[in-house]
């Protein structure tokens, strides 16, 4: 009994931190309608800043708390800079650009923090005055955690006062409800939003700095917390502070007790919880049923026309690609193989984004499912390569069919969050179920059959399969199926009123895109000889989005060019430096700001102008 109570209390302490971070995220979302991926990075920055300050000044009670406050202010200041430099230009962009742009900041900050503080975990000192523990029903409980438990409701109360009792808070709420009307009434939204970013980021920084006495500060804090904070915000209802508080409490308890009951699937548990909540209460626990955040992509969707002579051009390109191994060396052939695989991966994601307007933030899950499907068939059943390759799209397609059924029930940002959640579930299973998947060590020794072991032969096999799949995807895009997807994106109201079952089309598209990605994943597994959980992690999904974005969302051929360019950059430029995250982050931010139509779209625009 007393053990359960202490477990529950430690869940409350976790919830307090979670709430601090999530409240910042939900405030920022409520006002700017941007889901800030970099929020977790500001939390991490708060932790690092806090560590440095506490090391120097944290010997006294006053010094400790001043350090924590200064770290929070530092994170807040960076958030304000981010608003002025990046977010301000993205308020009217499609959510794809907003999510990607802020993810670029994640990458930049990762390298910046590693550069300043180094890669080692940093242990901070304990908080002066709160070092001991108290006895609760005979069990020791850290005083510091007890303080955190009290801090959560205190912050909620202060925020509530701020938003209901101060002029600034009322203006922020007004701008939240109607940005245009607020600015028409003489409120300067730019300054207001900068202030909101400062507040939200400072809350993240506060949460981070408060972690210093509890756990080692490390470079993985950002992704770990942002994914959990997403879940809290979505479960609580996006934009709702009280909802975030409630959700943080629930998820804190779920984690505290989940680890006792299901130690193998603790990571999966929170995402399952989120999926269940969203099915029962589509807008989260306390979210308002407002209009879904509009998909700006739909508003600007230009006509898509099947160009003349594309078939011949594609055949020519295919012949050229097929002839390349005759002149190119092994390394170039390996590079080409990977590029072709990534082209199929990007094209499958483009089916969802370009035609359906469905921005998936977890498409790597299906690439990974295909890769793991193939690898596990080989490892556990001793299947030959052709059989394993046939299994890849099937496994991924079934996974996508299951996940898609949930995901297409929501649109816009909620869709993105749901796909992210399912990708995290897939990743957690691969990571935690080590008996079956090999866990962190992955699956090794997945080599092609003897006849396909030559680099050139495997390349031709890959080229043939990918070209076939790409051809099918392109056919589907211009067939009634692809048109119906676009119809649902252009105007779901009109589509439903002429008998188009939008949701079912989206569901099938999700499964189709998933199985195409699965084929790409299966080919990738044999090309590399191994698979790892990172194939399904968030950065892998973002890579795919960057490829699509580089090529341009509006053209069917764009993703192919995007994949080629991305892979070239990745292998030739980024891997040559230790700071490739910084580079990739800068590339993403530049893409989002400079080429809103992608590179192919940009070139087409130039051609149109001249």
């Amino acid at each position: 009994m007393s053990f359960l109570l202490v477990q529950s209390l430690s869940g409350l302490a976790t919830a307090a931190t979670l709430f601090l971070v999530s409240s910042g995220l939900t405030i920022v979302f409520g006002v700017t309608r941007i889901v800030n991926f970099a929020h977790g990075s500001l939390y991490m920055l708060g932790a690092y800043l806090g560590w440095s300050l506490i090391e120097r000044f944290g010997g006294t009670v006053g010094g400790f708390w001043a350090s924590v406050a200064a770290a929070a202010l530092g994170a807040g200041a960076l958030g304000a800079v981010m608003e002025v430099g990046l977010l301000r230009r993205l308020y009217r962009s499609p959510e794809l650009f907003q999510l990607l742009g802020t993810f670029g900041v994640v990458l930049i900050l990762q390298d910046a923090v590693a550069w300043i503080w180094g890669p080692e975990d940093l242990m901070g000192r304990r908080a002066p005055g709160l070092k001991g523990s108290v006895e609760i029903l005979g069990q020791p409980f850290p005083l510091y955690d007890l303080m955190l438990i009290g801090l959560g409701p205190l912050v909620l109360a202060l925020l509530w006062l701020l938003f209901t009792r101060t002029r600034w808070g009322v203006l922020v709420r007004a701008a939240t409800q109607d940005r245009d009307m607020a600015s028409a009434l003489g409120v300067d939204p730019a300054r207001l939003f900068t202030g909101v970013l400062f507040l939200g980021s400072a809350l993240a920084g506060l949460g981070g700095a408060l972690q210093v006495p509890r756990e080692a500060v490390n470079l993985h804090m950002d992704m770990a917390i942002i994914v959990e904070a997403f879940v809290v915000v979505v479960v609580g209802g996006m934009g709702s502070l009280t909802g975030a508080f409630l959700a943080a409490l629930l998820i804190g308890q779920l984690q505290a007790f989940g680890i006792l009951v299901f130690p193998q699937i603790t990571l999966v548990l929170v995402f399952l919880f989120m999926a269940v909540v969203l099915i029962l209460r589509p807008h989260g626990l306390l979210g308002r049923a407002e209009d879904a955040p509009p998909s700006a992509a739909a508003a600007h969707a230009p006509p898509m026309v099947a160009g003349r002579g594309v078939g011949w051009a594609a055949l020519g390109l295919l012949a050229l690609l097929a002839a390349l191994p005759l002149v190119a060396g092994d390394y170039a052939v390996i590079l080409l193989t990977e590029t072709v695989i990534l082209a199929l991966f990007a094209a499958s994601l483009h089916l969802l984004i370009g035609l359906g307007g469905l921005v998936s933030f977890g498409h790597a899950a299906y690439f990974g499912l295909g890769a793991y499907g193939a690898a596990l068939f080989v490892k556990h059943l001793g299947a030959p390569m052709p059989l394993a390759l046939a299994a890849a799209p099937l496994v991924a397609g079934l996974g996508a069919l299951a996940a898609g059924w949930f995901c297409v029930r929501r649109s816009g940002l909620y869709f993105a969050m749901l796909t992210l959640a399912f990708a995290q579930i897939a990743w957690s299973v691969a990571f935690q179920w080590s008996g079956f998947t090999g866990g962190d060590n992955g699956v090794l020794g997945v080599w092609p059959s003897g006849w396909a072991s030559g680099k050139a032969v495997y390349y031709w096999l890959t080229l043939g399969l990918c070209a076939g799949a790409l051809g099918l995807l392109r056919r589907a895009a211009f067939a009634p199926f692809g048109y119906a997807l676009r119809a649902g994106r252009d105007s779901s109201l009109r589509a439903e009123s002429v008998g188009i079952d939008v949701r079912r089309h989206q569901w099938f598209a999700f499964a189709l895109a998933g199985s195409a990605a699965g084929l790409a994943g299966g080919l990738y597994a044999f090309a590399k000889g191994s698979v790892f959980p990172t194939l399904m992690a968030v950065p892998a999904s973002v890579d795919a989005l960057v490829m699509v974005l580089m090529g341009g969302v509006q053209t069917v051929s764009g993703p192919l060019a995007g994949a080629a360019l991305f892979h070239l950059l990745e292998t030739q430029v980024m891997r040559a430096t230790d700071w490739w995250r910084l580079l990739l982050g800068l590339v993403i931010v530049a893409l989002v700001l400079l080429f809103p139509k992608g590179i192919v779209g940009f070139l087409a625009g130039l051609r149109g102008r001249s």
Partner: protein
Amino acid sequence: MSRLEVRDLWRGFGGVQAVRGVSFTLESGDLLALIGPNGAGKSTCFNLLNGQLRPDQGSVRLDGIDLVGLPPRRIWALGVGRTFQITATFASMSVAENVQMVLLSRARRLFGLWRPAARQFRAEALALLDRVGMAAQADRPCGVLAYGDLKRVELAMALASDPKILLMDEPTAGMAPTERLELMALTAALVRERGLAVLFTEHDMDVVFGHATRLLVLDRGQLIAEGPPDAVRADPRVQSVYLGGEP
């Protein structure tokens, strides 16, 4: 049995009763206008008929089949076409492709993965566009059309499913006066040609009294008058609703 029979329809939002016990019938050949001041419940009434909203109470029967509770696309499949107050077309497609989508949907070919959509039902789509005077612009993208032309495309899309009844929510809103009369003359001709039944809402009284065969007048969620244009025009309650003064 009437083509469309609406019985005692109720719908509230929170504490507001937007539609209170509305009943009427619609027959082939009718061009029935639903009018009333702003906030009278016209749009709610429309959305109850096409399935976008569910009534709290009451029935809507099309040729005897109850439509209440069916999703919009099922109601469409049973023969209820519609145009929207704010035009809604597929902006990324050409005019002809918009109509082709409806024809593909009616033929249940939307899951086709192989034959290009642009080559299916093109002739039929062009014929429909010709009927509404849009054939010349068949290959222009819908996103660049003038507002009045979009309304015509919507009409062609509604006709493509060969509906029994057509619901038109403010069909001439935002159009120039001459365009309005043209569109309504076209609608009236279609009603005669095809034995359609049309229910439309409208603010422009010239359009209403010039073309409607019958009128329904809605005020604060209730029907206060019904009948041929002349009778409704003379009704003192209608006059007071529109012109103010004592009821």
